[in-house]
């Protein structure tokens, strides 16, 4: 009797049912190490510098002094805030690519308040007012695509993407309108003398208030998504629209409400960036962080505490890379290259967490 020849592929891909936490983190850490190795090769091949020295310089750049540590923390907070804002939308599988625009409109209204109400209102009132207005502005920017998605199924990825550029042009318009000094095409530091509308020091730290606000949001969003009824609705809608409908969830209401929240927090991030960090407004206020935060939110799988880690990793890299750039006379874009390499590796590693590879057994071992 002739044996039946099975044409078994060399590698089969099987979805894992579960993976132990140490193992999944092991894979992630391996991915980061691999990324550092590749980046090291990149740095060495371009500059012939010893990668170990370079990484040491990176650490110095991000964490070397108290001031640098605070600047790193400050930037982590802004990125984290945006990531937290994106979490509910992404959990609903609504691709809010428009964080960049939502930040900018939030920033623009904040800057307007600082310029026009800075002298007439006491600081606490002004800060509260700016927070509220930036939340409204961000929410409006987020709701628009959501309404069209909920009613007519308009593709939200493309819609929110385009809204970014509308917001960027509005910001350019504001910058041209408020430019100071004339002809500089920048707004300059707003209220440099009075400091009106700037975040006050908290616990003796200039960025104390940023940390408090963002950490409160982080914890709040975690609880909202995990323990509230609305958070559960978001999860159901994200899994399947049909299931949600069957369970009696009003789809359009959840979509619009969730995007309002998402846009609102991103708008608040704009307020944070303008009033709490930059004290000015430009098209660089968002500076691509709206896009970076998408990656942060996705990689953390909507867990806001993991976002803290990932945001920190990314900001650390950026600070570190700009330090190398100045120390070793490279240019600043090295940080984008290294960030890209690390993100690619982490993105790729998710595959090995969700799936396992089964290799074809050696001859004789396999039985049909």
């Amino acid at each position, binding site marked *: 009797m002739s044996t039946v020849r099975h044409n078994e592929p060399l590698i089969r*891909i099987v*979805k894992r049912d579960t993976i132990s936490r140490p193992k999944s983190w092991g894979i992630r850490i391996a991915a980061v190490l691999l990324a550092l190795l590749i980046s090291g090769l990149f740095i060495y091949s*371009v500059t012939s510098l010893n990668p170990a020295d370079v990484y040491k310089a990176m650490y110095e750049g991000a964490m070397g002094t108290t001031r640098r540590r605070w600047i790193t923390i400050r930037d982590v907070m802004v990125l984290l805030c945006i990531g937290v804002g994106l979490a509910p939308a992404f959990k609903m599988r609504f*691709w809010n*690519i428009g964080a960049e625009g939502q930040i900018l409109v939030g920033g623009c209204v904040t800057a307007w308040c600082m310029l026009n109400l800075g002298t007439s209102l006491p600081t606490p009132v002004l800060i509260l007012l700016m927070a509220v207005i930036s939340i409204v502005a961000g929410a409006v920017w987020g709701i628009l695509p959501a309404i*069209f998605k909920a009613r*007519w*199924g*308009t*593709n939200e*990825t*493309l*819609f929110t*993407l*385009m*809204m*970014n*550029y*509308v917001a960027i*042009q*509005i910001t*350019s*318009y504001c*910058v*041209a*309108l408020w430019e100071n000094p004339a002809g500089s095409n920048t707004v300059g530091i707003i209220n440099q003398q009075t400091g009106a509308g700037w975040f006050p020091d908290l616990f003796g730290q200039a960025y104390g208030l940023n940390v408090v606000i963002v950490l409160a949001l982080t914890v709040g969003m975690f609880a909202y998504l995990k323990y509230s009824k609305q958070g559960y609705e978001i999860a159901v809608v994200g899994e399947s629209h049909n299931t949600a409908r069957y369970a009696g969830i009003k789809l359009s209401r959840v979509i619009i409400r969730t995007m309002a929240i998402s846009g609102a927090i991103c708008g608040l991030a704009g307020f944070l960036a303008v009033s709490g960090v930059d004290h000015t407004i430009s098209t660089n206020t968002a500076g*691509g962080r709206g*896009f*970076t935060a*998408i*990656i942060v939110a*996705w*990689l953390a799988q909507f867990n806001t505490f993991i976002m803290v880690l990932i945001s920190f990793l990314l900001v650390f890299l950026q600070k570190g890379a700009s330090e190398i750039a100045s120390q070793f006379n*490279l*240019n600043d*874009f*090295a*940080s*984008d*290259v290294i*960030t*890209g*390499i690390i*993100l*690619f590796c982490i*993105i*790729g590693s*998710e*595959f090995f967490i*969700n*799936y396992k590879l089964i290799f074809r057994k050696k001859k004789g071992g396999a039985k049909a």
Partner: protein
Amino acid sequence: MTQLLQSAIIFGTVILFGALGEILTEKSGSLNLGVPGIMYLGGIAGLASAFAYESSTATPSPVVCLLLSLVCAFLASMLGGLLFSFLTITLRANQNVTGLTLTIFGGGLANFFGGSLNKMAGGVGQISVAVTSGAYRTNIPALANLGWFGRVFLSHGFMVYLAIILAIILHWFLTRTRAGLNLRSIGESPATADAAGINVTRYKYLATCLGAGISGLGGLYYTMDYIKGTWASEGTIEALGWLAVALVIFSIWRPLLAILGSYVFGVLTWLYLYIPGLDRQSLELFRMLPYVVTIAVLIFVSLRRKPENQPPAHLGLPYFREER
């Protein structure tokens, strides 16, 4: 007027390349948001290869310059597309996240080397590949002098016409060939296509890589023709890349409409120069137009619900055979 149309066509060609590549990619169901990064890769690869060649020989031949930079730009962009394909198709990563990362990475890599090239050539904005850029901008004087028609339509370098020819070929491929039909069916419903015996993975890989190669030519055209063989690290290519993504929507995924659309975007971009009494503030609002128009088209298309105008049904969604 002639001037406006002429510059509109030059501007439009940059984004036309980007959009054509992205149409091919999106028709296979992959939403590659890495277009800006890919255009960056194309631009820098073309520039770097031309620079290396021009500075290594005393009398560089324009033909070699041209072919070398064209091939290098295409290959570098294809590598970007290959990376995207490997991560999204083989490793099943999310398309949006991978695409955005590709944009960060491509922009970083290009500006990193662009900055280094500038430094090697001595100072910012000093790099220049005159011979190559000249080759790209060569036109046929006899045709260019045919009155206003010649100035508007026949006075450009060959890439303008290459883009149009590519659009026509792409249209023919998507609507008139078996392979094009297969590709579109994958974009609409990969499960059905798979059941019909079409190799989904191979088609997606090819469409994404070739699409990336075509998109990258937009970056090449930008560096060689638009800014005449120099490099500026100011993020213009990124903005143009997103405009190319917008153009894909604007032209409702049709290559022939994309030709027209790209010139319309070009006109919208430069129109402000010809409007009297426009101050700087309103100018910025004016620049919003292409995006607003794109949003309007996006809304209009989804309101009308005409099946032939919709995005590919499976656009941006992953397809894994065993997860149905």
